C-alpha cells in the first residue's frame, strides 16, 4: 500500500516534470508557431542562472523563482527582436535560425563557464516519508509549482487584456493590427513570456538535475513530443499529453525498466499522432485553451 501510494506520487511528479519542461515551448511553438529548437538551451540558461547566482551568494529561492525567469525572459526578448521577428510565418526558417541559436548558446556558455561548473546547491525541503518509502519534498513542491504555473498562464491568457490581445494576434494578426493593436509588441511580449516560463522551469530543475552546457538536448525531444501530441490548444493539450505520456512512461519504467519506459512513451506518441494527426486537442477539448 505504501509502495502504491508513493509510486502514484512518483508518477504524478513525472507528469508534472513533463508539463514543466514543455510549457514554455507550448507558448512559443504551440501558440506562436515558431519551431524553437533552442528551447532546451532556454532551460539550460535558467539552470545556469541558478548555479552561477547561488555560487555568488544569492539565495536559492530568489535565484530559482525570480532571477531565472527574469534573465531568460530578457534573453528571449533580445532574441525575438534580433532574430525571430524577421521570420514569423516562415516555419522552416525559424527551425534553422533557432538551431543556430541553440549551438551559439552552448558555445557561449562553454567558453564563458567551461565544460562543467562546480555547484553547491542541493534540493531544499527535505524528505517526505510514506511508511517505508521516502520521497523528495522538493519534488512535491515542483508538482505544486507546475499546477500553479498552468493556472497562472491560463489566467493571463483568459482574463487579462494582454492575454486577449495575444490570442487575437496569434489568430489573425492582420485583423488585430487593423484594430489598432501593435502586433509586433505583442509578439515580442509573448515570446519573452514563453522564454521566461522556460527559464523558470530550467531554474527549478537545477537542484535535481545536472547543469551542463549541453544538457538542453536531453529535454528538447520530449518537450516537442509533448507539445505536438497535445495539439492546438496549448494548455489543455500540454496537460493531457503530459498525463498520458508521463503516466505511461512512469508505470512502464517501474514495471520493466527505464529503456522500455522510454520506448513506451515514444510508441504512445506515434500512435496518438497516427490516430489524431492534429494532436489530442485537435479532436477533444477543441474549444479549450
Amino acid at each position, binding site marked *: 500500500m505504501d*509502495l502504491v501510494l*508513493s*509510486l502514484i506520487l*512518483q*508518477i504524478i*511528479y*513525472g507528469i508534472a*516534470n513533463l508539463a514543466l519542461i514543455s510549457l514554455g515551448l507550448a507558448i512559443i511553438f504551440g501558440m506562436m508557431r515558431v519551431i524553437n529548437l533552442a528551447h532546451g538551451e532556454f532551460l539550460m540558461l535558467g539552470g545556469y542562472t541558478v548555479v552561477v547566482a547561488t555560487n555568488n551568494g544569492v539565495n536559492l529561492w530568489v535565484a530559482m523563482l525570480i532571477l531565472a525567469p527574469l534573465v531568460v525572459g530578457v534573453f528571449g526578448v533580445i532574441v525575438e527582436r534580433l532574430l525571430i521577428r524577421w521570420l514569423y510565418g516562415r516555419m522552416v526558417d525559424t527551425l534553422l535560425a533557432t538551431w543556430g541559436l541553440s549551438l551559439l548558446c*552552448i*558555445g557561449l556558455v*562553454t567558453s564563458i563557464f*567551461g*565544460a*562543467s*561548473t*562546480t*555547484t*553547491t*546547491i*542541493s*534540493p531544499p525541503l*527535505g*524528505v517526505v516519508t510514506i511508511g*517505508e*518509502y*521516502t*520521497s*523528495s*519534498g*522538493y*519534488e512535491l513542491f515542483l508538482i505544486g509549482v507546475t499546477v500553479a504555473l498552468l493556472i497562472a498562464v491560463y489566467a493571463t491568457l483568459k482574463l487579462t487584456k494582454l492575454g486577449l490581445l495575444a490570442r487575437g494576434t496569434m489568430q489573425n494578426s492582420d485583423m488585430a493590427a487593423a484594430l489598432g493593436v501593435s502586433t509586433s509588441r505583442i509578439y515580442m511580449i509573448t515570446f519573452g513570456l514563453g522564454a521566461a516560463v522556460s527559464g523558470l522551469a530550467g531554474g527549478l530543475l537545477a*537542484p*535535481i*538535475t*545536472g*547543469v*551542463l*552546457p*549541453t*544538457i538542453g*538536448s*536531453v*529535454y528538447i*525531444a520530449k518537450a516537442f513530443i509533448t507539445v505536438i501530441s497535445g495539439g492546438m490548444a496549448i494548455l489543455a493539450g500540454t496537460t493531457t499529453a503530459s498525463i498520458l505520456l508521463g503516466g505511461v512512461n*512512469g508505470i512502464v*519504467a*517501474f514495471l520493466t*525498466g*527505464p*529503456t522500455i*519506459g*522510454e520506448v513506451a512513451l515514444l510508441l504512445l506518441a506515434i500512435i496518438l499522432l497516427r490516430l489524431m494527426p492534429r494532436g489530442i486537442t485537435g479532436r477533444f477539448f477543441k474549444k479549450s485553451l
Partner: protein
Amino acid sequence: MQFNRRRFLTAASAAALATPAINRRAMAASHSGPIKFVSILDQSGGLDIYGKPMVDTTKMAIDEINAAGGLLGREIDLQVFDPQSTIQFYTQFATQAAAGEKADVVHAGITSASREAIRPTFSRFKTLYFYNTLYEGGVCDLNTFCTGSTPAQTVEKLVPHTMGKWGKKVYIIAADYNYGQITAQWVQKYVKDNGGEAVETEFFPLDVTNFGPTIKKIQAAKPDMVMSALVGGAHVSFYRQYAAAGMNKSIPIASTTFGVGNEHKLISAEEGDGMICAYSYFEEVDNAANKAFVQRFKDRMGDDAPALNELAARSYEAAYIWAEAVKAAGTPEREAVIEALRSGAGYDGPSGRVAIEPKTNHANQNVYLAELKDQSFNIIETHENQPPTDTLLVCDLVADPNQSTFKFENGLEAAGIEL
C-alpha cells in the same frame, strides 16, 4: 609551438622563391622535421566534459617534452582535432591523421564506440594508436595501446571492499551502451565471486533525467548498496534525486564512473558525501610527482583549471610512455616503437608507475579506492601494479601478435567468461 603542415609549406615555398640555397635546406629539414603527434578528442558536444581536460594535459606533456629539447633532437608537432562528439568526424579525422598527415602516433577516442570506429583505420594505414580512456577491456590489437584502467583493475577491488563494508545485496544501475552493459556483467561476476547477490540490474538510455521510478524500485528491493556505472550529464540527475529522497543516508553508492567527468563537482557536498569510487588516478593521490603535476597544471591553466581525473592524468602519462619508447627505439618509426613499448616501456607519473603489459598492450597500473567528502576524494586503499587480468583472460599478443580484434564485442559470454 604550433607548426603545422600548411604553415610549413607556406614557409617552405616562400623560401623556395627566395633563394635556391635556402630551398635545399628546407627540403632536407622535411625529412628529419618535427615528429607528428595527433590527438583526436571531443572538445565540444556532450563528451566535452571528458575531452577538454584530456586535451589540456596532452598539450602540457608535449610542451614539456619540447621545452626539454624535444625527442631525438627533433621537435614534436602536436595537432589536435575536435570530432565534436560525433562518430562520423572521428573516422574522417582518423583517416586524415593517418593518410594525410602521416602522423607518427595518434592518441584518440573517448567512448568505446569512437575507438571501434577508428581502430581499423590505424591498423590499415599502419599508424601507431593509443587509447587512454578507462573502458570495459577486451581490445586485442598489436597496433593499439590501451592505457586506461579496465574492470578487473577497478571493479575487482571496489566490489569486495564495499561489500565488506556495506553488505552483500547489490543493486546495479548502468548506462545502456556497451561500456555500461559489459561493466555491469563484470560487477555481477565479482559480486558472485565474493559471495554476494546482484538483486537487480537496470540500464538507462543516456538521456534519461527522471530517475523517480528506479529510486522507488531500489527502496522496494532494499539492497545493501547500489553500484553505479551511469555515464554523462543527464545521469548526474540520478545522484541528486537519490539524495533528495534521503536515500544517500540509508543505502550507499559505489561507482566505477562517477568522478571521471568531474561529476563530484556537479553535485553538492551533502549529496555526494560517502560515495566510494575506484580509479587508477585521483587528483588527491599523495606523491611528489602528482603534487608537482597538479601544481604545474594549475599554473598553466589559471583559474579555469578543471579538476584532474584518470582520463586527464593518463593522457599526460601516455604521451610520456610513447616518448620513452621513441627514445628507447631511437626512432619514431612504428615497428621499432611498438617493439620498445612491448619491452616493458613505462613511466613514473602522477598516478605512480604505468607500464605496458606486452601480452595485451594494456597497462599495469596502480588502482586507488577513494571516498568522496566535500566534493573531493580521500584515498582509502592503494593497490600497486595491477595487471589487466580481464583482457589477459582472452588475449595473448606474445603468442600470436597478428591480432586486431575487440573480444568483448558481444559481452563476456562471447569471450567464454562465465557470469
